[in-house]
């Protein structure tokens, strides 16, 4: 019996990128380190769910474009790690307090010197941590020179502000 042919790998086709250059990662990490001090906190996105729960995300902005969202834990009044959005019941949310909390966290945040590659976006994702929790990823172009914004989130912020 002949084994079925394996599915083609999604993406690919960039012949010039077969040779991996570790310098690109260093450059990407350096870009994020430079940008981290320039990041600002956007308007907190406070959503009420159908079951009465509250969910708070805080966009991290760089010159008018959103880079990533930080989950906010209304019970702890602190950032929640990536992948753990918090649904909270019976809590009062003060947007100003949320903003100030994330501003402080962003000042204390640091870049983890490692990267994963995201082929669909052709970008490096560099983790940023606070208090030993990864709270956001910053995407940098393959050549390690340019930040790649989250345009979907940028739009969400625009709509929320208006």
């Amino acid at each position, binding site marked *: 019996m002949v084994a079925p042919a394996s599915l083609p790998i999604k993406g690919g086709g960039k012949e010039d990128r077969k040779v991996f250059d570790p310098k690109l990662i260093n450059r990407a990490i350096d*870009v994020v380190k*430079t*940008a981290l*001090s*320039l990041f*600002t906190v*956007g*308007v907190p996105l406070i959503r009420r769910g159908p079951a009465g729960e509250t969910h708070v995300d805080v966009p991290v*902005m*760089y*010159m*008018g*474009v959103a880079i990533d969202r930080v989950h906010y834990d209304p019970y702890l009044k602190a950032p929640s790690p990536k992948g753990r959005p918090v649904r909270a019941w019976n809590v009062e949310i003060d947007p*100003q307090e949320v*903003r100030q909390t994330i501003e402080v966290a962003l000042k204390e945040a640091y870049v983890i010197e490692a990267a994963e590659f995201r082929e669909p976006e052709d970008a490096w994702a560099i983790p940023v941590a606070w208090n030993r929790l990864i709270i956001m990823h910053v995407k940098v*172009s393959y050549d390690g*020179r*340019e*930040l*790649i*914004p989250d*345009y*979907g989130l*940028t*739009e969400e912020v*625009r*709509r929320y*502000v*208006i």
Partner: protein
Amino acid sequence: MVSRGLELSGVFTRIAPYIIQLSDGDERRFLFIMIVIVSLSSSLIMNDTAMFVFIPLIMTMSKIAEIDMKKAVSLTAIAANVGSALTPIGNPQNIIMWRVYRISVHEFILTMFPYAFLWVFILILFVFIGGSKKQFRVFTMPDVKINRTLMVSSATLLFVDVVLIQLGHALWALPLTLAILAIAEPGVLLSIDVALIFTFAFIFIDFKELSMLMHAFNILPPLKSSISVVLLSAGLSQLISNVPATVVLISAGKPEWLPLALGVNLGGTGIVIGSLANLIALRISGIGIRDFHKYSIPYFLIALGISILVVFV
């Protein structure tokens, strides 16, 4: 859509490092450059979009260089309002007047240029009068990736759409824009704020009705002299915002377009509700209404007084 396409292409984020370099660590020079750039860009990408692009830069500057954010945000919001007065596509009220009065693009720009220039000049005086000279450390900023296809297609569409509308083929502009953006970047089409379009539609319906009622009960004073139109439109903008004020006054008797344009564009400054751009600037930056009024109300009164003198002369 086109303005959003230009914004989402990331092209404006490339301007920021140049502003920092050109300012050479001088806060006043930074504000001067910001006012000029915001005035010019808002005349192309609309005043509220300019706020989304440039207010975050001021926030970054205030974080790194400790510049006076309240002053910078207030003056930038005013710059977006008065700069957008220059072109028929700079803000919603100009688009309404452009369509209703059938003014040509070049006539609109040529007529508005002296006033927009005057208003920006007065604003620049606010930068240099008062306050001490502050220096900050010049820093480097990483670039944001630009979507070149979206940038070129949006810039081309901006030009083509204006020509089509000017030639009386406005109905072709929408399908053309939809088709090209669907090819270049479908995400832009999904990002259209439908709620905002409905909001503007309801503003038209509501305020047209209101205008008819005010007309029926003789609440609005006669719109005979240019000065009365300037004063009434500027004053009404302070109460109900400048886009509704434009709709009300056009429905009430279609006064001359220039005094109306002067009044509603200048009326965007002053009290915060004068223009949506002010509200966006305050919401993004988090500065208080009182901080904004400290600059916007004196500016409004001075600019209005000088503009009336110019109209009289």
